[in-house]
């Protein structure tokens, strides 16, 4: 079996499944947000912040942000391993990507619970 030390699940099958589960979560979150905005055309701050004050919405959002992190890593890992052949360039790009994912995750948690 070919093992790789930089992919998320350490196994292609694990990554394959993670990519699909996270994709379904993100599709549901996207449809929910787009649907909410479409059905609330005159949205104001009270309703918007009220939605994100609900526990279920914070959990749904956190699940979506974690899914973004996993999905982006599997996807960008695939892209970087396909196109960036020199090891130093590839590892460098992957380090930048993982740092950005970490920042987005922390940012997401702070915006959900920090305010």
């Amino acid at each position: 079996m070919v093992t790789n030390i930089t992919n998320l699940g350490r196994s292609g099958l694990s990554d394959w499944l993670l990519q699909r589960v996270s994709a379904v979560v993100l599709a549901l979150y996207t449809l929910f947000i787009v649907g909410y905005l479409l059905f609330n055309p005159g949205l104001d701050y009270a309703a918007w912040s009220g939605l994100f004050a609900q526990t279920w919405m914070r959990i749904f959002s956190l699940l979506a942000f974690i899914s973004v992190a996993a999905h982006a890593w599997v996807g960008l890992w695939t892209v970087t391993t396909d196109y960036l052949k020199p090891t130093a360039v590839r590892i460098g790009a992957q380090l930048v990507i993982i740092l950005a994912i970490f920042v987005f995750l922390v940012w997401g948690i702070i915006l959900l619970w920090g305010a």
Partner: protein
Amino acid sequence: MNSKRPVNLDLSTIQFPLPALTSIAHRITGVILFIGLVFAFWALDTSLSSPVGFAAVSDALAHNFLAKLIAWGLLSALAFHLVAGVKHLLMDMDIGVTLEGGVKKAQITVVVSVVLIILAGVWVW
């Protein structure tokens, strides 16, 4: 593997079938969406921070041409990426996994995405 086999990796001389183009577009839109997370997180964070922040985001989306363009661009990338993703899930379920099915699904992906992109444009403007 026989290393003397002729290899042509000059992409400009290769004619890509439609499923290859939608596959590449799926990757490109994925990269665009990752970069676009900066704008999405900024908009969400600012709009939730205070009534003033909410007004700033909704004002930008209502009047700022550049903000509208970014919103439409990201919605378009998201629409294509989502539709192409659904196509992937269909293939995982063994639906239409033939040469003809692959071309047909790629055509449907393009048509559905174009419709959604136009609708997104109508929504933003």
